[in-house]
């Protein structure tokens, strides 16, 4: 049934995951939230708000025991729980505790809340799995330890070989229950290999299910997902110069979108997928242009003597941020899409590049040179709140996760370029790409 085994793109269609809500959370006040935030709140809308506006939020202490597995499976309960533990850890929102020996009463299968609350655990997450042929069913539950109550119960079923996708789906729902916003564990990251070749690869956000998308033998750069997740734009030297190409993931069909003289680089889809912003030459100087998805020029957006590159759209499509060196050093500017003056945003360092507008619209992530090395930073769109998130090695090319809680970037901190992910506060930073890579792009769709 699966069309192409090497194609990670539509693995998402395959499991036909069915979810059923065992307990509606609609009116269950997230007691965990209250404990965490430490405030008393009487409205049912109260949710754990986890973003940079609440820098004092402590990670939630959770226990995730190995899943219980019925007979006939190829994968162990420990492996399945590890997938979920890693997902939750990478968000920086959770402290995954050691599982106490008596966390779950083996005879009744019920949590031992007494023991759990003594360890300080706030939430308990259980998974039990049954296999039938090549089918697998995962039943996941989330308990509020303090209230001794089930917060979430969901059932997922699909092909056993897609067990990772199933656990990621469970994780997405856990985050939704605990924060109000689903997780991004079912999304993917595209990147450029940084080995002897420069080919486009795609992997799950946690680095698994790596697939090579291109095999051109030429240099390929700056991948960008289409909003529907079906295709990827990239700059490729297949004709001997940097043209903008697309590759359709299900069919692997490729074609040139823009092959004009000079560079056709750093392309970004508008959030509605109708336009592409990119850098092309205008009388020999790289400028930001808007083109249609067929490659026809809509207009030149920026002007002046600077080199303009790396556009990024605001989520409401009204503004584009980009890099220009018109003032002598590369800095980030913002310009209204429908005409108007460009406004300089960054003044903190003498080298600011790679802007990526957060999906929530309030922040830009970018690369700044600090003491001779590149670091990932964030800044509010009004130019305040400059924060440096990385400090080890040299880091560049930040890319937001679609839920705005994490940032992928490339780092050379261990000597070779690798794709890392971190939470928006930079507290957890972990390498995920199984091969050397750079220029990550985070898909906005789930598999």
């Amino acid at each position, binding site marked *: 049934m699966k069309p192409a085994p090497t194609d990670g793109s539509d693995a998402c269609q395959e499991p036909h995951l069915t979810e059923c809500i065992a307990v509606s959370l609609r009116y269950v006040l997230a007691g965990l939230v209250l404990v965490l935030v430490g405030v008393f709140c009487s409205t049912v809308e109260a949710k754990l708000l986890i973003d940079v506006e609440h820098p004092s939020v402590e990670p939630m202490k959770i226990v995730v025991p190995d899943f219980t597995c019925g007979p006939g499976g190829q994968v162990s309960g420990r492996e399945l729980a590890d997938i979920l533990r890693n997902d939750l850890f990478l968000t920086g929102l959770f402290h995954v505790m050691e599982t106490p020996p008596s966390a779950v009463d083996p005879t009744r299968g019920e949590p031992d809340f007494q023991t759990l609350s003594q360890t300080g655990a706030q939430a308990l997450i259980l998974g039990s799995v049954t296999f039938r042929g090549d089918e697998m069913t995962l039943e996941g539950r989330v308990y509020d330890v303090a209230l001794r109550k089930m917060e979430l119960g969901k059932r997922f079923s699909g092909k056993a070989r897609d067990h990772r996708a199933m656990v990621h789906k469970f994780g997405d729902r856990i985050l939704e229950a605990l924060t109000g916003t689903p997780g991004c564990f079912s999304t993917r990251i595209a990147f450029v290999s940084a080995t002897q070749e420069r080919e486009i690869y795609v992997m799950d956000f946690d680095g698994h299910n790596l697939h090579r998308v291109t095999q051109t033998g030429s*240099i390929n750069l700056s991948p960008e997902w289409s909003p529907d997740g079906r295709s990827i734009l990239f700059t490729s030297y297949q004709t001997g110069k940097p043209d903008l190409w697309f590759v359709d993931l299900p069919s692997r069909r490729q074609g040139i979108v823009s092959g004009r003289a000079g560079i056709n680089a750093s392309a970004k889809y508008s959030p509605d997928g109708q336009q592409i912003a990119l850098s092309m030459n205008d009388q020999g100087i790289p400028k930001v242009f808007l083109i249609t998805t067929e490659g026809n020029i809509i207009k030149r957006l920026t002007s002046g003597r600077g*080199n303009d590159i790396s556009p990024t759209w605001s989520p409401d499509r009204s503004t584009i941020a980009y*890099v220009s060196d018109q003032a002598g050093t590369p800095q980030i500017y913002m310009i209204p899409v429908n005409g108007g003056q460009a406004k300089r945003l960054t003044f903190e360092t003498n080298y600011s590049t790679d802007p990526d507008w957060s999906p929530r619209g309030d922040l830009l992530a970018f690369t700044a040179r600090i003491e001779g090395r590149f670091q990932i930073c964030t800044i509010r769109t009004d130019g305040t709140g400059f924060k440096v998130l990385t400090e080890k090695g040299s880091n560049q090319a930040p890319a937001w996760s679609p839920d705005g809680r994490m940032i992928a970037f490339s780092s050379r901190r261990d000597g070779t370029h690798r794709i890392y992910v971190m939470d928006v506060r930079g507290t957890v930073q972990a390498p995920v790409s199984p091969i050397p890579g750079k220029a990550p792009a985070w898909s906005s769709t789930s598999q």
Partner: protein
Amino acid sequence: MTRLYGSGLFRFPSFCCIALLFMVVVGLAVLTSGCSRPIVRPQPLYPGGPGAYQPGPVAEHGLQAMQAGLNAIYFDYDKFTLSPEAQAAVQANAQVLKRVPHARIVAEGHCDERGTDEYNLALGERRARSVVTYLAELGIPMAQMSTVSYGSELPVDPGHNEAAWAKNRRVYLKVVQ
């Protein structure tokens, strides 16, 4: 009247003689210097002599010979303007390029690793453009030239020190068919 022309060098007959002599000397000088200039009588780059461009192995040999005569043009860190040394290098390259008037020329712009990838792509493009613009001023037709930026993707020296970086901030001129 004799008083007007009657004394010194400006006496009419001797002025004529001197002017004639001067013209002969200048004429000889122009002729001799003209003979030594390659534009007047170009060195054949390949057997068969100059003329319309002939594709094929013979032409390829000529291109290779010319390619070998072209030198990299180097840039200061984070700069795309031509330093005096870079200008001299472009001038020397222009002299070589003029020997095959119909060759197509690609200027390849490169950067060192101390920049971020996408900005380096723009910077490499601009370096290549600086070279092409100056070559056009020196008489190479713009229509025969194009630019390709590789950013920092193709370092010539993989080292992580100033010597390596200096070698990597460069524009190569490539002659193509």
